[in-house]
Structure formats: structure tokens, C-alpha cells
């Protein structure tokens, strides 16, 4: 059968590669993941890209895609994430209460606070905690979460606001604190099922308990089946 | 027959040139910066004069009044540039054959002959970069000739060549011009070369034609001499070999008498051209005795040109023959030289410069 093309946010690479691998073994259908920034993928889908499934890193781009499609498409969240503060390892603890300006040090790496989902969530969180005004001058923004993480890993920034899934995969950083889930919009990865006939079973697999366990093992938060 | 009538303005000089070049070799003579290269460029189509008309035989090369303009590639001329302009990326052979190939001709029949004549056979596989100045120029001459042009334009082609090579090449150019009927427009500042080659001479001075006409007339014109440099003034005399004497002297009949030339290898009956420099001609009112009795011709003063310096140029005529003599102003006054005065031109046989010796219509291999 034709491979299934999954357009997915680049930060999902590790977990989706593994899922694709398993699905190919299971169903005999190849899954070809196409990774890029959510915005890039969304625009390409609107322009007619041959995508069967679109997994965005935020609802802004999944909503945007839905608006551009001339047919209805089912959407569901397939994973969540937590926003954490990382510092250069070793160091850090995992408390939630101790988020103070001092924790961040002189330079805070984030995704673009107006554009990159992790940056947007991060700014919301800092605002909710009443720290944004004070910390904004210390913020350095990268074009994606991965760039922010690299700033910390390279020692260029004293701290970074990234996803928990990213922090888990980078051994050079340690989590210093986790933002309360209530301090920002819920972090979800919405999946837009563009070709239900072709990609539906794979999406089901991602939502299954096996799929959710896989997400969890890469540091994502599982979601209840059917929610989002 | 080449007709040129052009006007063009450079910031520093205004060209206003009009002349006719009949068959044969036309030499453009003039000082450095007078406009010789510009004229030849206009004929080649490289310089597009502001206005004017140029035609070669029936073909109109340019006619600004009618907006006519033939691009260089269709003019079918062979141009030897003043600065050689060899193609640096092509071998000497490919440079030489460039024109023939463009015109879809095979290797021209005279290829080998020309290689020998120009002494460049050993260079054909080299590239221009390492060639000496003279070698470059010889290749450039070959390149233009091998393009089988309808007309040959040569801008000081011999300037970088030694006498020996020159002596071999000049007859070849003559043969090309006369034998194959390829007209030649030849730029030089060397009057001896002009005298040797020219059928027609066009003297250019400061962007204007100072004089033009048959070579003999122009070279014997005292008005022209100052333009070319008085030092180089001299006339061309046509003669016919009468007899070669046992003592090596060749007796030549010219209008007005006989001349005796040493070391001339022409055969009786042949027509030859002699060059007599003005400084080698003395004027005597009485037939001199005791001096060289050999080359004394009765003549009449036909023109007098007093220059700004201490010298005067006197034109002497007998029939169609004209001579130029350079005398001091004092002598001019002392002898009372004026137009119409009969007198004697005293010239030594050997004053007929070797380089100016020229077989008319001869066609031996160079």
C-alpha cells in the first residue's frame, strides 16, 4: 500500500520515528514522517501538500489548517507536554513552588515568544507568575525550542524554558523547576486527520494505550483517548 | 576601390577624413596620434564614425545618411591590429586558422608557405602567452592573411620585425595585392616602407588628410614633407633597366636621362622604382664637372617650399619624373631658385636607397 505521510512538528521526531517503525511492523504499511516547523507544514498542507495526517505543536496552526481546508477533518490531541526550566547539568531539582527570578540566572533561553509555541506558552507562564516584566530583558529567543535548549547546553544561557520531553533527551541539562500546568494554556499536540481512510488506523494507534505509553516514554504527557 | 569620407569627434581631436584608394596598396602615413588607426578602425567597422560614408567597390560599408552600417563580420576584411590581439586561449595554429574556419574554408592552400615566410612553423602548437613581441606580430599577420579577406588592413604590421623578415614579407604583401587583387590599406610611419610599398599614399595630419594621391606625386610634393618630417623627404622615380654593365653598375633610363646603380640585380627591360631622398640631391646651375659625373639630370624647378627652419625643399621635374632636393635657405637665395628655373640635379647612383628599390609588377616568391 501507499505509505502514509505524516506531517509532524519537528520536535516530535524521536517518538514518531519509533511509532512509525512499530506501525510498519504491525500493519505492513509504511509511515513516512515529514518533519518541519508547524507553521511551515501548515502552509504546505494548505498549498496542497500530499499529507495524510498533520500533527501540530499547537492549536493555532491546526486551527489555521482547518480553516483553510475545504472539507471538514477530524482533530484530536494525541499528546501533551509540560513546560520546564532547565539549567546546565548537574544542578536543579524538580520542585514547582520555587520559581523565583534568581532561579533563571542572567540569561533565559526561550523559543520566539511571539511565534514559537514553547515561547508563547513560556511567556504566558511567566506572566501568570508575575515574573515577565522583570525577566523579559534577560530573555534570549531561539527560532525553536531546540535552539533554546542548545543555548543552555552550550552554556550560553543560564537557563531555558523548554518542554519536558526536550529536557529528558538532552543529557547536558537538568530540570530546575516545572511550571504549574495552570500557568499557561494547555500544551497539546493536535492531530488533523486529513485522509481518514489512509491515516485513520495509524492515528488510532497513536491514541491507543500503546501509543500513549510510547509518548510518555519520550517525556510527553499522555492524553485521555477521545479528548481534545 | 575604397572610398572613405568620415567625420568623428574624439575629445582631443576631430577626424575629418576623405580619400579614395584605387586598387593596390594604399599607405596611410602620418605622425603618431594623427588618426591613422582611427581611420583603419572605421573601415573595419570597429569605430563607428559620427557621420560619413565608406564603400569598398560596390559594397557600401557605412552610409550614415541612409543609416546603412555593415557589421565588421560581414565586411570580410583581414585586420592586423597595432597590438596583435591574439586569442590567448587558442594555440598559434588555431589563431592562424580562426578566420578561415569562421568563413567555412578549409586550411588555406598557402598555409604552409605563410608559416615558412613568417618563420612561425615552430610556434604553431604554442599559445600566445610566451611568444616574443615579433613572434606575436607575425602570427597576427598570418591570421589576417589566412582569413582570405577581400581587403587587408595592416596597422604598422612591421614595427616589431627585423629587416630580414621585413624584406621577405613586403614582396609577399605586394603579390597578394597585385597578384590576387586584394587591396591593402597599410598604416606606417616609416617613409621608406611607404615608398617601397605604396601605390597610393594618404598623408594624415591632425585628423585631416594633408595630401593624397599616387605615391610618386605625394612623396615628391614639397608641401607634404613638413608633415612627414623633413628628414625623411624623398621622391620616387620610375625607371627601366637598360643594361647591366660589366663593372656591376646597372644603367637605368628615367625621364631626363640615365642613372647608374650599383648592386642592383634587375634584368634589362624591367621597370623599377627608385627612391631618392631629398638630402641626397644637390642642385647645380651649371652641369658640374669633376664631381660624380654619373647621375646628373637636367631638370626644372617646379616648386619651392621654404620651411620654418634653415632649410628649403625644392621640387625638380623632368617630364613625368620629379625629385625633391633639400637645400639651405642660403643656397636657395644664392642660386636664385624659383619655379621655372632650369638647372641640374646631382645625385649619386648609390643614393638610391636599397629599401626603396622595388620591382614593378614583379612576382617572384619571397
Amino acid at each position: 500500500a501507499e505509505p502514509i505521510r505524516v506531517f509532524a512538528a519537528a520536535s516530535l521526531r524521536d517518538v514518531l520515528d519509533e511509532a512509525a517503525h512499530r506501525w510498519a511492523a504491525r500493519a505492513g504499511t509504511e509511515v513516512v514522517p515529514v518533519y518541519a516547523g508547524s507553521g511551515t507544514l501548515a502552509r504546505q498542507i494548505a498549498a496542497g501538500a500530499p499529507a495524510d495526517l498533520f500533527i501540530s505543536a499547537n492549536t493555532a496552526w491546526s486551527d489555521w489548517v482547518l480553516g483553510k481546508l475545504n472539507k471538514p477533518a477530524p482533530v484530536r490531541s494525541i499528546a501533551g507536554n509540560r513546560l520546564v526550566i532547565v539549567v546546565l547539568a548537574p544542578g536543579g531539582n524538580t520542585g514547582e513552588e520555587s520559581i523565583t527570578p534568581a532561579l533563571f540566572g542572567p540569561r533565559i533561553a526561550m523559543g520566539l515568544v511571539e511565534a514559537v509555541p514553547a515561547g508563547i506558552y513560556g511567556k504566558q507562564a511567566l506572566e501568570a507568575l508575575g515574573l515577565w516584566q522583570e525577566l523579559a530583558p534577560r530573555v534570549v529567543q531561539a527560532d525553536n525550542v531546540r535552539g533554546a535548549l542548545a543555548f543552555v547546553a552550550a552554556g550560553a544561557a543560564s537557563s531555558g524554558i523548554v518542554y519536558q520531553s526536550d529536557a529528558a533527551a538532552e543529557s547536558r541539562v537538568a530540570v530546575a523547576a516545572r511550571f504549574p500546568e495552570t500557568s499557561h494554556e494547555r500544551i497539546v499536540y493536535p492531530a488533523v486527520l486529513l485522509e481518514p481512510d489512509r491515516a485513520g488506523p495509524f492515528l488510532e494507534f497513536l491514541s491507543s494505550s500503546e501509543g500513549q505509553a510510547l509518548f510518555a516514554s519520550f517525556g510527553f504527557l499522555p492524553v485521555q483517548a477521545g479528548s481534545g | 576601390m575604397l572610398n572613405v569620407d568620415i567625420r568623428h569627434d574624439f575629445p582631443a581631436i576631430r577626424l575629418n577624413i576623405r580619400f579614395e584608394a584605387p586598387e593596390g596598396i594604399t599607405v596611410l602615413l602620418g605622425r603618431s596620434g594623427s588618426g591613422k588607426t582611427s581611420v583603419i578602425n572605421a573601415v573595419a567597422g570597429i569605430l563607428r564614425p559620427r557621420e560619413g560614408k565608406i564603400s569598398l567597390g560596390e559594397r557600401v560599408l557605412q552610409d550614415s545618411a541612409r543609416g546603412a552600417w555593415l557589421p565588421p563580420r560581414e565586411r570580410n576584411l583581414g585586420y592586423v591590429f597595432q597590438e596583435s590581439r591574439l586569442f590567448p586561449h587558442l594555440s598559434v595554429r588555431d589563431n592562424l586558422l580562426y578566420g578561415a574556419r569562421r568563413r567555412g574554408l578549409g586550411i588555406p592552400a598557402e598555409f604552409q608557405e605563410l608559416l615558412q615566410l613568417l618563420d612561425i612553423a615552430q610556434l604553431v602548437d604554442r599559445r600566445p602567452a610566451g611568444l616574443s613581441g615579433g613572434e606575436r606580430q607575425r602570427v597576427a599577420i598570418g591570421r589576417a592573411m589566412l582569413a582570405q579577406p577581400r581587403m587587408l588592413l595592416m596597422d604598422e604590421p612591421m614595427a616589431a620585425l627585423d629587416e630580414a623578415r621585413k624584406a621577405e614579407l613586403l614582396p609577399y604583401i605586394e603579390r597578394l595585392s597585385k597578384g590576387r587583387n586584394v587591396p591593402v590599406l597599410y598604416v606606417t610611419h616609416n617613409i621608406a616602407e611607404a615608398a617601397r610599398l605604396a601605390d597610393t599614399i594618404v598623408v594624415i595630419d591632425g585628423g585631416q588628410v594633408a595630401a593624397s594621391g599616387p605615391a610618386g606625386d605625394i612623396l615628391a610634393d614639397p608641401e607634404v614633407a613638413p608633415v612627414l618630417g623633413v628628414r625623411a623627404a624623398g621622391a620616387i622615380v620610375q625607371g627601366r633597366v637598360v643594361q647591366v654593365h660589366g663593372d656591376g653598375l646597372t644603367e637605368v633610363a628615367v625621364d631626363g636621362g640615365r642613372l647608374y646603380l650599383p648592386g642592383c640585380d634587375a634584368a634589362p627591360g624591367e621597370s623599377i622604382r627608385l627612391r631618392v631622398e631629398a638630402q641626397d640631391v644637390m642642385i647645380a646651375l651649371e652641369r658640374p664637372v669633376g664631381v660624380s659625373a654619373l647621375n646628373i639630370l637636367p631638370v626644372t624647378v617646379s616648386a619651392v617650399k621654404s620651411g620654418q627652419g634653415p632649410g628649403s625643399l625644392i621640387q625638380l621635374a623632368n617630364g613625368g619624373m620629379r625629385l625633391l632636393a633639400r637645400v639651405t635657405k642660403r643656397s636657395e637665395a644664392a642660386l636664385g631658385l624659383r619655379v621655372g628655373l632650369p638647372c641640374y640635379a646631382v645625385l649619386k647612383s648609390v643614393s638610391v636607397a636599397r629599401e626603396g628599390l622595388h620591382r614593378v609588377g614583379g612576382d617572384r616568391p619571397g
Partner: protein
Amino acid sequence: MSGLGAEEWQVVWLSLKIAGVATLFSLPLAILTAFALARGRFRGKALLNAIVHLPLVLPPVVTGYALLLLFAPNAPLGAFLQDQFGLTLAFRWTGAALAAGIMAFPLMVRAIRLSLEAIDPGLEVAAETLGAGRGAVFATITLPLMLPGILAGLVLAFAKALGEFGATITFVSNIPGETRTLPIAIYSYLQVPGQEAAALELAYVAVAISLAAILLSEWISARVARRLGGQDAER
């Protein structure tokens, strides 16, 4: 580099194909454009010049986005090409080559133009007097004398095409086996923490390829230079 798996080899091969096609196909157009800019006298020359430089000035993403808007299957031009010529660019390697070619174009044009402007026009004139028409002058004189610039342009363009990322991923996405080039693969690895080694390995491959291309071009241009000869080469 022993560690390259089949997938990586595919990426390398695809990159070479895309960069090669981009470079070779843009060459004639680059020569033409260089000619127009160096020799032409026409209205809108400055505009043409500016357009040629655009891909350099704009963030690559913008160029890619513009290409997407033009050549997507849903866009008029894309649909036209698709219908009339069966030519799909979006999300195909051909599109990647187009993006790479466009991004590399200004580099190629400049190099060629510089060489062109350094040619002594007297040589072309000499060829004309020897009966060469415009085409022949170009083919036998101008083009060979432009070789240093053409070579330099090819190398620059090839290197740039090999490294092009932003416009490519924006226009044709990151489809394995179709549009996933070396830089995109490297980017993908870099998007996930802990994959630096894999990214580095591919970066080495990119460096090796471009080193080979540079060595080749230097070798050729040394030969060309030798052919043209130096005034005082003997010194």
C-alpha cells in the same frame, strides 16, 4: 563515515542530484543574465539586477514561501505547469532543485559577470573582423575566456545548493527520499536532543563533498590558467 546507513546514503545521493541539477540547469540562464547585466543597455536593468540578488537578501524562508505560493498544486502557476507539462515542482526533488538553483543564482551570475567584464573587448572585435558572427564570437572567444568565472560560479552555486535549507524545506518540505537533503536531514537530527553525533556525521559528508568539488574546480581552473598563460610566468 563508515557509519552511514542506507537512509543516509539516500540523503547524500539525493543532495548530489539536487545540487547537480540545480547548478547545471541554472548555468545557461546565469550566463545569459550575466551577459544582460554586463553588456546590455535596457530599461529595467537595475530591476533585473535587484531581482537576481533578492534570494540573497530575503530570509530563505521567504523565498521558499514565495515559491510555495507560486508553484503549489493549488496555485495557478503550479496547476498550469502540472496540467500543461505534467511538471510537478512542489514537494518533489525537482522543486528542491528549483529552490536551490534560485538561492544559488545570484552567486553564479556575479562570478560569471565579473569574468565577463574582465575580458578585453578588443579580442571579441578581432574575432568579428575575422568573420565570426555573434554566436561564433561568443562560443569561440567570450565563453572560453569566461571559463574562470564560470568555474567559480559553478563551485559557489554547487556549494550553496548543497547547503540550501530554508527555502527548500519551506517549499518542498522534508520528504524522505524525495526532498530530504543533507541540510534538512542535519536539521532534523538537530531538532531532537542527543542526536548531535548523527548530525555531525552528515555534516562531515557535506564537507567532504564540497571539498571534492572545490579540489576538482581548482584543478580545472589551474589548467585553464596555464592555458591562458601568464605574462611573466617564468619568473
